């Protein structure tokens, strides 16, 4: 009997046809259900682009203005649709330009398949034109990568790529295809990959652990839930809600978990982390049982680990065994797909209310409202705040929009104040903190959820890192709504300089161009607002627009984001001013 390294199953395209490797790539993508991809052509990938030409009606390729934009667009698409995003580039600089997006997808567990062209097999290792060892470069930031040097290997490589990218804890996969493999003809048939013997996407569920976890949760006096993106990736939003409602446990989200539970839910207490809400941060060190659901205890969530939830029994629901006890020591690890483990624990959970405990969160919330939120959302000062812009967008969209944010102060403000009614509504670069993420990610998000409103909230710094993607918006006519919150500073770095470096504003002030003129240069309707009196109308115009729209809001230059847990401090040391 043949030794199986992977299991492959027949598909509709299983019939054998003689085609080139390049055409095979397209057939593989179609067989995996890909109808949209992002990329940028170049020498070593030209045969695949040539093959794509024939299939334009079935497989839409969006030409971005930079390969990084292609990856972020693929990420935005994947994050809102739950499908695998696909990005393609040529060898050398095309491939290296993908790396930031790949690293972002790796740390934020986004399913993505990247295809790169490579010099012909006989040129490998000769420092040929546009040759770069992209497998070597991308190894630490991919879930898996593989270099194909002959056409016959293309179907299995891509079948495995899609299976690995989407299964278990998702992530990015890179397939590098030498030019000769694209040109060679071979007998093509496609089989989907359903298993790989060395890869276990999800651990088996241990019912004993579920029972032990339930017993601890049922006897808890002050239980607290922190949920992360695992809920969204695991499609466990309904199970999460059923669990917290039955157990009556206050719940908070990580940055990437946002929108897994609607922000108006009575048991939702806000966001944890460096700029999260006061109550959930403080209560982390007050609870007796901390239930972590599909999250990984990032340092921006925990602050000083030696003073993080030490009093609590930690129960960790997690799909990736390597995350258990990585940062926070758990009492019980409930391994497995969170949808299944939450379904498993629900019948064992006692119905409770925990009203006095929940009241403590509300009291802390009132303090934060008084000291921070009120001034952010309903300012009395003359200058506009980032918070009031988000609040007005909330009012106008009702909380139904997908909010794509970049990285920095505006991101934290967007994550803190955006209203979310439904899941997969928050798209942001969480783990990597990639400035320049939002504009291309918004393109992908709108294409992945065309029926939904997509609003990109971007700072003046990050906007200029991928501003060229306005060209993609213009060419594809994708109706994304772009809001730049302009404070003429790299605001978050400036905030740190103010608080921790004695206001030495080294290289954080930006002399900005006329953003409205730039948008208009791409034929995108644009407007600038500097006065509060004009804000409502401008946001109405932004949201009402049938096409893409650019709105620049000039905000207070030196506002700070609070609450804040300074680096190395404990969650208990959450500062309100």
């Amino acid at each position, binding site marked *: *009997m043949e*030794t*199986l*390294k992977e299991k492959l199953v027949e598909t509709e395209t299983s019939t054998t046809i003689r085609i080139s490797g390049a055409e095979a790539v397209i057939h593989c993508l179609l067989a995996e259900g890909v109808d949209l991809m992002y990329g940028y052509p170049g020498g070593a990938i030209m045969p695949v682009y040539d093959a794509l030409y024939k299939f334009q009606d079935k497989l839409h390729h969006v030409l971005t203005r930079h390969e990084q934009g292609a990856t972020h667009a693929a990420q935005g698409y994947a994050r809102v649709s739950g499908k695998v995003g696909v990005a393609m580039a040529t060898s050398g600089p095309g491939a290296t330009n993908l790396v930031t997006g790949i690293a972002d997808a790796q740390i934020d567990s986004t399913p993505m398949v990247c295809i790169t062209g490579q010099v012909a097999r006989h040129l490998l290792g000769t420092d040929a034109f546009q040759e770069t060892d992209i*497998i*070597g470069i991308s*190894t*630490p930031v991919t*879930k*898996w*990568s*593989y*270099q194909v040097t002959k056409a016959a290997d293309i179907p299995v490589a891509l079948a495995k790529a899609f299976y*690995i990218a989407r299964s278990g804890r998702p992530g990015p996969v890179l397939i590098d295809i030498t030019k000769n493999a694209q040109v060679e003809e071979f007998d093509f048939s496609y089989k989907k990959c359903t*298993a*790989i*013997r*060395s*890869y276990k996407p999800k651990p088996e569920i241990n019912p004993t652990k579920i029972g032990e976890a339930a017993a601890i949760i049922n006897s808890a006096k002050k239980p607290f839930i922190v949920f992360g993106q695992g809920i969204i990736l695991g499609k466990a939003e309904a199970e999460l809600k059923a669990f917290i409602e039955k157990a009556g446990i206050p719940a908070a989200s990580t940055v990437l978990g946002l929108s897994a539970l609607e922000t108006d839910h009575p048991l939702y207490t806000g966001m944890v982390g460096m700029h999260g809400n006061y109550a959930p941060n403080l209560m982390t060190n007050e609870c007796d049982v901390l239930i972590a659901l599909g999250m990984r205890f990032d340092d921006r969530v925990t602050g000083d680990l030696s003073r993080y939830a030490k009093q609590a029994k930690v129960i960790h629901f997690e799909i*990736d*065994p*390597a995350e*258990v*006890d*990585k940062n926070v020591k758990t009492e019980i690890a409930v391994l497995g797909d969170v949808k299944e483990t939450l379904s498993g624990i629900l019948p064992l959970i006692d119905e409770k209310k925990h009203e006095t405990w929940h009241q403590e969160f509300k009291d802390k919330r009132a303090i934060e409202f008084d000291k921070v939120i009120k001034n952010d959302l309903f300012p009395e000062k003359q200058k506009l705040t980032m918070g009031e812009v988000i609040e007005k967008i909330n009012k106008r969209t009702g909380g139904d929009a997908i909010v794509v944010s970049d990285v920095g102060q505006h991101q934290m403000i967007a994550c803190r104040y955006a209203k979310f009614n439904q899941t997969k509504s928050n798209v942001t670069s969480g783990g990597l903190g990639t400035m320049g993420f939002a504009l291309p990610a918004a393109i992908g998000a709108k294409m992945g959820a065309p029926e939904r409103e997509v609003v990109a909230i971007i700072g003046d710094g990050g906007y200029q890192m991928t501003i060229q993607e306005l060209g993609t918006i213009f060419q594809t006519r994708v109706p994304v709504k772009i809001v730049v919150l302009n404070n003429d500073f790299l605001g978050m770095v400036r905030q740190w300089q103010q608080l921790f470096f004695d206001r030495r504003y080294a290289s954080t002030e930006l002399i900005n161009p006329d953003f409205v003129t730039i948008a208009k240069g791409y034929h995108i309707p644009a407007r600038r607002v500097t006065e509060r009196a004009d804000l409502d109308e401008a946001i109405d115009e932004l949201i009402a627009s049938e096409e893409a729209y650019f709105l620049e809001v000039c905000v207070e230059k030196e506002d700070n984001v609070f609450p804040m847990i300074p680096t190395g401090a404990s969650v208990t040391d959450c500062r309100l001013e």
Partner: protein
Amino acid sequence: MNNTYTISVYSENNIGLLNRISAIFLKRHINIESLTVSESEIENVSRFVIVAAMDEDQVRKIVGQLEKQIEVIKAYYHTDEETIYQETALFKIKSSLLFDERQIQNIIKQSNANIVTVAREFFVIEKTGRRHETDALYDELVPFGIMQFVRSGRIAVSKTEMNISALLREFQNA
């Protein structure tokens, strides 16, 4: 407290995997003391034997990260007490010494080393054993002059079972 751990990784035979494995150590600033890759008892399955010093919490996390790699079938860690391990050292010595320095023959005999080859100019001694044994032989030979010295990485088998065959059978039959 740091301890020497022998990490065994059973994997598919894949070109890029060594890179992925070493990157896991590199990222955490853990120095690999020795690394040996060979075929394992199972056809087409490679085995890495990696020796590194760290505390148990670290080695547990490292093994978790190793197992996360797509092509890693299973990884284990063991202390020295839990393994049978050996290293091989080769010493290249001037042939004339073999006849001029009678003591060398005694050293070879007493240390249970073998003479692998004798040529006109040099002869080669092989010694397999624990690190302290090859070190001791080195110390004894140094005064006579060693032309070349090389020591292999550790190879090790565990005292307890590492049930890879069963895992693979399970996959095959599932």
